[in-house]
């Protein structure tokens, strides 16, 4: 066992690399959350829609996405999809932050599939009679959903959604394979420069763990404080 020393890692460049990685990991999680959540609500609504075609499309999406590993999604969105763009646009996209955009796209679609299932469960936890009652009062189906069912459903769903956010946070690490300079990527870079693999990954573990524990705590708090009394039992 070689001697452990954290001091070389906490100086100058290496620390800056790790912090830049942490920043990008957080940014990627935040951006994905912003896009995945609306998409997930849309898919959940499709899956419980009165129209059969929408239900099938929603289910097909969820199954297709969940049955493929995230690593494959990443490679697909980096090496595959952008190649279909027209030449002119492609050159501009590739000159920019394609590594971040591809990771964002893959994470959004992947996370939305899981979140939509949680939201669907939340909707099912709201008594079905409420939808009927709202429509009997003259609300359209969509208005009844938006104003009566979804607000309650999302409150019930908050703890599982936070747990999906935790998964999302950990999943950002997979983006290292497509050259996205997030925390894992920077950690590997520091490791190859210093050969202090144990120390580097110990620091990275602490970083992942602290954000994860924060999310777990938040989920616990949401469970206790925000769920309607029916869901608290």
């Amino acid at each position: 066992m070689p001697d452990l020393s954290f001091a070389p890692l906490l100086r100058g460049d290496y620390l800056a690399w790790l912090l830049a990685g942490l920043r990008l990991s957080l940014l990627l999680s935040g951006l994905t959350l912003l896009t995945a959540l609306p998409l997930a609500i849309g898919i959940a609504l499709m899956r419980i829609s009165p129209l059969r075609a929408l239900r099938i499309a929603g289910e097909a999406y969820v199954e297709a996405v969940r049955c493929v590993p995230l690593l494959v999604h990443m490679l697909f969105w980096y090496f595959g999809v952008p190649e279909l763009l027209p030449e002119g646009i492609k050159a501009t996209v590739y000159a920019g932050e394609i590594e971040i955009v591809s990771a964002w796209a893959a994470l959004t679609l992947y996370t939305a599939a899981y979140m939509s299932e949680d939201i669907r469960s939340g909707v099912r936890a709201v008594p079905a009679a409420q939808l009927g009652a709202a429509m009997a009062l003259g609300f359209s189906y969509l208005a009844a959903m938006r104003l009566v069912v979804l607000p309650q459903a999302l409150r019930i769903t908050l703890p599982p959604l936070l747990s999906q956010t935790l998964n999302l946070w950990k999943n950002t690490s997979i983006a290292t394979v497509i050259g996205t300079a997030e925390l894992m990527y920077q950690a590997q870079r520091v490791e190859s420069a210093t050969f202090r693999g144990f120390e580097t990954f110990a620091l990275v573990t602490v970083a992942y763990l602290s954000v994860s524990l924060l999310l777990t705590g938040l989920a616990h708090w949401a469970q206790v404080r925000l769920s309607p009394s029916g869901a608290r039992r």
Partner: protein
Amino acid sequence: MQRNRRRLTHTLAALGLSLLALQGAHADQLDDIKKKGELVVGVLGTDEPNSFIDAKTREIIGYEVDLARTLAAKLGVKLQIKQLAVAARIPELQQGHVDLLAASLTHNKEREAVIDFSLTTFVTGQKVLVKADSGIQNLAQLSGKKVVTIKGGTQEPNIRKAVPNVDVVTFETGPQAFQALQQGKGVAFVNDEVSLLDQHAKLGAGKDKYRVLEQNISVEPLAIGIRKGEKRLKAEVDGALAGLEQSGEADKLFLKWYGPETRLKFPKRTFKIESDKVDN
């Protein structure tokens, strides 16, 4: 109570002794290798012609695999090849999962602090491949541009040193980075000269669309990696390698994998397996 305490002391002493014995068993790797009758050598398996998978037999072959075979034969043990990722090489060696590294490993001063190296087994430079229509003629023109390369090697630090303002994106393997270049996700691909020439040659007819820049970004002596402080093992390895040089076998191996008959077409060997000293 008294008896329990004594028993505890005995147990602890026994534990201590067995730990010592365990350490004793690991004190010399050469003895370990001979005892288990097997030499585990870590290779890349993705870096033709140093180590790569033969399309027909599905086995890992190459220049470094042949070197490893010679070493195993010299020690009189069986050879076991283990495929490693570039970034995993040094940790795998340090943790004892492999006995030696024959994995396109650059010998430099910085790495001497963590592992030992054999005599230099190959000398290569690192170069840059660009698209022919990119208009890039020299290294300076890469400033501010995006270049792609492999994680965990010396390629990234070297290109950053050569072109301070460059933007680098790294991938797990050479072929992946090369694909990113082909798709235009970077303007240049940085790699060891040999791997670069090999990947370039593999393009066949599409070869003309790419060009290798003349300037070297570094000179890279490759060597076998040995765990730090294993002096007897290093002596054996160096002895076997020096033997290859003296018998002329080293030259044959070079011609077999790099010579004019191969895709790489190196006319002759410009180095000798004789020294374990490096300049940088």
